[in-house]
């Protein structure tokens, strides 16, 4: 049972009344995005970047991405990846290997509202 004391403590850490166009990376995104984030995080290693450039499908295969997630990567669907739980900080690494400048991601983000 959730008691009042817990709810009062939660107040301090859990944003609850954010407008829809402001988001958080929290339990929901962390759980949903775990495969996508693992994949993009791997790109800090040069050998993973080389594999991505050489064989994108083989690169994706390593992380058990779902078919829907692979499709988001293939289509460079930055909004879809974001909604799929990919953190902006690893998305930047994916933007690097796909040659996508941040302003282009920004343009898509702005048009997502």
């Amino acid at each position, binding site marked *: 049972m959730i008691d009042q004391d817990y709810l009062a403590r939660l107040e301090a850490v859990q944003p609850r009344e*954010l407008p829809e166009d402001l988001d958080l990376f929290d339990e929901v995104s962390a759980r949903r995005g775990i495969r996508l984030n693992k994949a993009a995080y791997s790109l800090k290693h*040069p050998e993973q970047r080389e594999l991505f450039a050489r064989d994108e499908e083989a690169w994706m295969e390593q992380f058990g991405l779902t078919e829907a997630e692979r499709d988001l990567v293939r289509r460079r669907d930055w909004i879809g990846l974001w909604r799929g739980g990919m953190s*902006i900080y690893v998305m930047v*690494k994916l933007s690097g290997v796909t040659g996508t400048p941040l302003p282009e991601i920004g343009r898509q*983000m702005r048009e997502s*509202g």
Partner: protein
Amino acid sequence: MARILGGIGASHAPSMEHVYDAGEDVRRNEEWEPLFGPFQQVSEWLSELRPDRLVVIYNDHMDEFFLNAYPTFALGVADEYPIADEGFGARPFPPLPGDSGLGWHIARSLVADEFDPTICQELEVDHGVISPLPMVDFAEGDAQWRIPIVPLAVNVILHPLPTPRRCFKLGQALRRAILSYPEDLGVVVVGTGGLSHQLTGPRFGQVTPDWDKEFMRRLAEDPESLCDYTHEDLIKLGGTESVEVVNWLAMRGALPLDARPVVEAYYAHKIMGYGLQALAAGPA
């Protein structure tokens, strides 16, 4: 005993790295002078102050820490900190020198004070540390860092985050840790991040200069008033990623309340509200 000489709050961003790496002409052109000019002033202030160590409170951007095990606070206790490869190849700097003795002392003191950081004997630092640091701590002629650091990382990425008040208190505990170190060292505490920026969703690129200036004013004059803000408040005022300003608040907690700004600059440009503030601790 060690002394705290002052503090520096500074934004961190890959854009600052690109400008620095492009060389002196770009750093001091019309576009970047409003930020890099004041960085030069902070560098000169630091040269006069001659600190022996920098404690750098920052946040990693999934360049070292990942979601498999994300630390709320993480403290470096190494003798050197290599530069992280953030996905584009690491910047060509030598590893930053550390001070494992001071690091371990801070670890013990923080834990005794009921702050329990993840203790890191190996730690690669990303732009949270090395986007502002070269401007104040790198001797380009010798290609050497000048001052050994102790890095302290705060989780500002994976909610739930430590509260602003908790971060201020962490700074106060860091102060007790530094002041109890038996060696006669002068220490400057650095907090990096912010100010306003929004990197996701339809508000991508939004900056809020009025709030940023208000934040800097409060940080200098009345830092405890910032402890009453929740992350939700900070996100509404400065954007999702602006919660990094808790790193500044932790830095401020390590300084005496009457510390005063000696350099202050604010520059809203493109998708960032860039802030810079150097605070002198006054006579010890």
